């Protein structure tokens, strides 16, 4: 744990690597069409400094964000380093989630189209009807109450408590989705898989109301196989990193 104020000279190799991966996650999320206006935010614990988190500043498009643009705040919501300001919603959702769940090194929050539309349908339930859904078996939480934007400490803490222990995705009614994971690769792949599964579920329901139910034992085995940072998740991030290094390498600046 460290409370030393940061400046660019203090960024070590581990933090530089973390900043590059988190900046890449924004570029990838933009590429996949998950950005909404100026909103939404991704955060990551600074390696070796559990009370400090990297997060995107307000006012930059995801396609603009570079590694050095990321701001550092602490898990009590205080600004630590970085020239730009963080949106109050970003501050409180992420500070409170990291504080409550130290194992979740990365927290992503989006209003991606299909998973957000899912939160707008009353009482919607994530169905285990396709093999990709299995990784989420027993790891999905729902906040069925909408209390307004998460722009204060109390609401941030409430959302953090809704995420619960060991869950990797939280659906927020009338709002959007949060994924949590031990790495950028894991949390990003969860967001990708949630969005894909929500889209598929909506499409499947157009064929009929009753969906296939995968055997719970098979689901549980699938979830176990994908715990932590799966091979798929790492390969997905690495593939996109190669694409970014070709098309927009400035994300590492």
């Amino acid at each position, binding site marked *: 744990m460290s409370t030393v104020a940061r400046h660019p000279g203090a960024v070590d190799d581990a933090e530089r690597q973390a900043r590059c991966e988190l900046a890449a996650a924004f570029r990838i999320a933009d590429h996949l069409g998950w950005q909404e*206006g100026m909103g939404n935010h991704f955060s990551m614990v600074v390696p070796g400094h559990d009370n400090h988190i990297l997060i995107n500043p*307000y006012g*930059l*498009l995801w396609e*603009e*964000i*570079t590694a050095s643009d990321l701001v550092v705040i602490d898990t009590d919501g205080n600004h630590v380093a970085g020239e*730009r300001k963080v949106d109050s919603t970003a501050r409180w959702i992420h500070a409170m989630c990291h504080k409550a769940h130290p194992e979740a090194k990365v927290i992503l929050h989006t209003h991606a189209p299909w998973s957000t539309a899912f939160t707008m349908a009353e009482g919607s339930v994530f169905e285990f009807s396709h093999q990709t859904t299995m990784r989420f078996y027993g790891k999905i939480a729902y906040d069925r109450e*909408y209390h307004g934007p998460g722009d204060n400490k109390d609401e941030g803490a409430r959302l953090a408590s809704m995420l619960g222990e060991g869950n990797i995705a939280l659906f927020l009614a009338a709002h959007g989705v949060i994924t949590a994971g031990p790495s950028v690769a894991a949390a990003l792949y969860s967001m990708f898989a949630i969005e894909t599964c929500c889209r598929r579920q909506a499409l499947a329901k157009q064929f009929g109301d009753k969906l296939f139910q995968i055997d719970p034992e098979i689901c549980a085995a699938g979830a176990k196989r994908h715990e932590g940072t799966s091979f798929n998740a790492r390969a997905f991030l690495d593939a996109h990193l190669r694409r970014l290094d070709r098309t927009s390498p400035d994300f590492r*600046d």
Partner: protein
Amino acid sequence: MSTVRKLDTGADPAWQARVDLAAALRIAKRFGWQDAMGNHFSMVVPGQENLILLNPYGYLWQEIRASMLTVIDTDGNHVEGEEVHPTARWIHACCHKAHSSAKVCLHTHAPYSTALTMIEDAELEFAHQGNMPLWGKIAWDRDYNGLGDTKEEGDRLARALSGGQTVLFMAAHGAITVGETVAGALYLMHKIETLCMRQLLAQSAGKPLVKVREDLCKQTADRAPATGKGAVAFLEAYKRILDREEPDYAT
């Protein structure tokens, strides 16, 4: 990205208006809102309340440059520049004439908001937090009356906004947003397009939608107008991208 873009307060406001309106057309194209040669964005010339800038007919939005914008007056007379489409002339002239607070008026057939206008008696449902700032700001014209290419039809559409609304959904047609600035009206168009997309995706599940509590909607509508700091940041951010990738918009 390391420098913060500063507003150039020294620039001529009339030129700045042209630059912003041209930027809005370029940005709208990037979002996929263009419908062939149709649709139009307008803005009152700063300091000359009876004159408005409009995109000329026959150009794709990605071709529009600040200096190409046409000037007409709020009675629909041509003042300067290439011809505008009659629909552009009457929708925008009448809207600005009737609503002096609407300095900017955007009209698109963007995919999802237009799809919503094709559903009988559709409503924009308050089923997501992004809807809340729009509480009380939405107007509907349920009577499709042909193209808006006459003064009478322009006046009729303008009257639909007389309750202080900033969004007009026109049945079987498309959407209009108005605002005090290009940033405000553009952000509003982006908001309604995103919300309509989400609503139509959510409705494809065939289940009832969540309803955000009315008191929260009202509070948020008062506290966070749909055209606040987000709108300015949004336009400034996309102008940075345009400055890098297609800087001729500002010429």
